């Protein structure tokens, strides 16, 4: 069996700040095969973006990868020299940010930016590069791409800008795309367009897609597998249907339960008590302990990340073993 496109193993990315060590990512593991979508979900501050940045080698001091492996077709990116990483970034591995202006340069025309990106990794003529840029815009459903190439980013709507950013990520038909909440700021009718493009893309080019979001409903319809993060750790992972229909971890169950459509109209929503603890001040053992209805004395020890059902892992010593109607 050949190595999966992307395999993250026990990744730790810590920030060594004056106030202490912020363990933003502290034992994250998941695998994405070619043509598959992994939904990386979790609430604000759980470490999703830092995980994405780690894969792209974009973590800046005082942060650094403090442990684990990021295997890209079997090659460890965590220890790859920056010069080699630069050859992969934007070429074989690309990122789409929540704010498309992280990708786009406001003072350059779209064609200038796209041609530069093409020529950064491919020895082709300017004309050939322009042709590729044009094709990429067409792929993400931008009408009259020739005219659009001559525009500046501010001449586009938010949804259009995000599609241009996606087109740029597509230029080299990367093997891996990490998309960090690319539709969160967009309206649903535009979000639908972008999700449709994402689906086409994986199917056409066999791209392995990591889709970061806090919205379980987006992941439900888009992803093959899901990894749920809480306070820097993946607390549950597995195939979407299994995790959403039969969650093992009490946090996953709580999250699903608090989605309005999973509740009877007008009745109180099921809610998770309390709030997310500060990363600088986590309870010992299971970080979810102070909010967990199933907590027991044994939870004061760090729970292992164990496979309770084929392909479905959870970081909990007392998981919901039988399917619970969430």
């Amino acid at each position, binding site marked *: 069996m050949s190595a999966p496109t992307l395999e993250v193993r026990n990744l730790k990315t810590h920030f060594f700040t004056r106030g202490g060590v912020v363990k933003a990512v502290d034992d994250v593991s998941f695998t994405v095969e070619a043509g598959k979508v992994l939904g990386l979900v979790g609430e*604000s501050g759980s470490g999703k973006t830092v995980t994405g940045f780690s894969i792209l080698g974009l973590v800046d001091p005082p942060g650094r990868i403090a442990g684990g492996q990021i295997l890209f077709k079997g090659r460890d990116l965590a220890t790859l020299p920056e010069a080699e990483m630069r050859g992969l970034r934007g070429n074989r591995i690309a990122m789409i940010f929540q704010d498309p202006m992280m990708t786009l340069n406001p003072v350059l025309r779209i064609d200038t930016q796209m041609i530069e990106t093409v020529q950064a990794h491919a020895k082709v003529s300017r004309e050939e590069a322009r042709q590729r840029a044009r094709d990429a815009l067409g792929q993400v459903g931008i009408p009259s791409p020739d005219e659009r190439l001559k525009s500046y980013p501010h001449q586009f709507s938010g949804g259009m800008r995000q599609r241009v950013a996606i087109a740029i990520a597509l230029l080299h038909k990367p093997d891996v795309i990490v998309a960090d909440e690319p539709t969160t700021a967009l309206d649903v009718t535009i979000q639908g367009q972008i*999700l449709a493009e994402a689906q086409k893309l994986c199917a056409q080019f066999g791209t392995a897609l990591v889709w970061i979001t806090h919205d379980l409903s*987006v992941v439900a*319809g888009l992803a093959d597998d899901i990894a749920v993060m809480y306070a820097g750790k993946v607390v549950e992972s597995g195939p*979407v249907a299994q995790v959403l229909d039969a969650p093992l971890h009490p946090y996953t169950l709580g999250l699903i339960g608090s989605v309005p459509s999973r509740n009877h*109209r*007008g009745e109180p929503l099921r809610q998770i008590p309390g709030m*997310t603890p500060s990363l600088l001040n986590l309870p010992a053992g299971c970080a979810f302990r102070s909010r967990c209805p199933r907590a027991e004395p044994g939870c004061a020890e760090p729970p292992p990340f164990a496979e309770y059902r084929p392909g479905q892992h959870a970081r909990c010593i007392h998981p919901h073993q039988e399917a619970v109607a969430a």
Partner: protein
Amino acid sequence: MSATLVAPPAAETLAEPIIELRGVSKRFSKTLDFAGRLAKRLGANLREEVVHAVDGVDLTIRKGEVVGLVGESGCGKSTLGRMVAGIMPPSDGTILWRGRDLRSLNAAEARNAKLRTQMIFQDPYASLNPRLKVQEIVGEAPLFHGMAKRSEIGTYVDEQLRRAGLDPSLKARYPHQFSGGQRQRIGIARALAVQPEFLVCDEAVAALDVSIQAQILNLFMKLRRELDLTYLFISHDLGVVEHLSDRVVIMYLGRVVEEAPAEEVFRHPNHPYTKALLAEVPRIEARKRAFAGVKGEIPSPLNPPSGCHFHPRCPFAFDRCRVERPALKQVGPGHRSACHLNDAA
């Protein structure tokens, strides 16, 4: 249990209107910046552009109702909310507060109407004065309006905080010392402190994580029961709106395109835009579905399409749609929709 939370439809039709909007519009002129004004003085052919943020809206909200207002970014939800809350005058049309034209109220009555309606915003941090302690933020207005005596203000504030689900022992802290969900609770306590009967919530849970969002939505529903509050609940999240509204109003580019009891909108949407919107809402029940998206971009409100604003994106558009604005017409009990297709049938 749900019976106590969702007002029965019969009560809705009987309850008196708290607020009525008749043909209300709001226009903003996008004033030229300095360079623009200068260019114009020098003879350049520049016009001041006008945004029809809200364009001829009729809306009635009755006592005890929760009305959900949905629509995409820039369609005029916040502008409508501000006019309903009486903090922004309309450019055109009439707003009746308990049957009386807002413009006809004397100063004391107008102040009272304003106090009775409170607004809760998306970004609790931006709407809380960072230099004031929580007790001052919550206690300021009731003290000023004589709702609590200075000697009793401590207990009064504690009661508001407790009601909003905050520990009163934290009241000497500043807003930055709280989490997002807690700050939203401070905003709610501040609004409740002036004893409102009507809350206009503008994306009040949009910035919160789902688990915290559930806590705040539950609080809104509990307060509704306990204090007999009426709500205009503005949100772009259809799941949230479906969960807690009795009635739903859908806007597109400044206009109301459909209005109906919540269950009716979600089960039998009439307007092509509503249908498209509902089809695109991601559902947690869905597995590996094919997304499609509504074709086309959301047009600019500076230059909206003629006739029915939705016609460039509408799969059913025909000639009439390009020239004539469809009127909001009854299509079922309490159900109104603005689409020419309803005439053809």
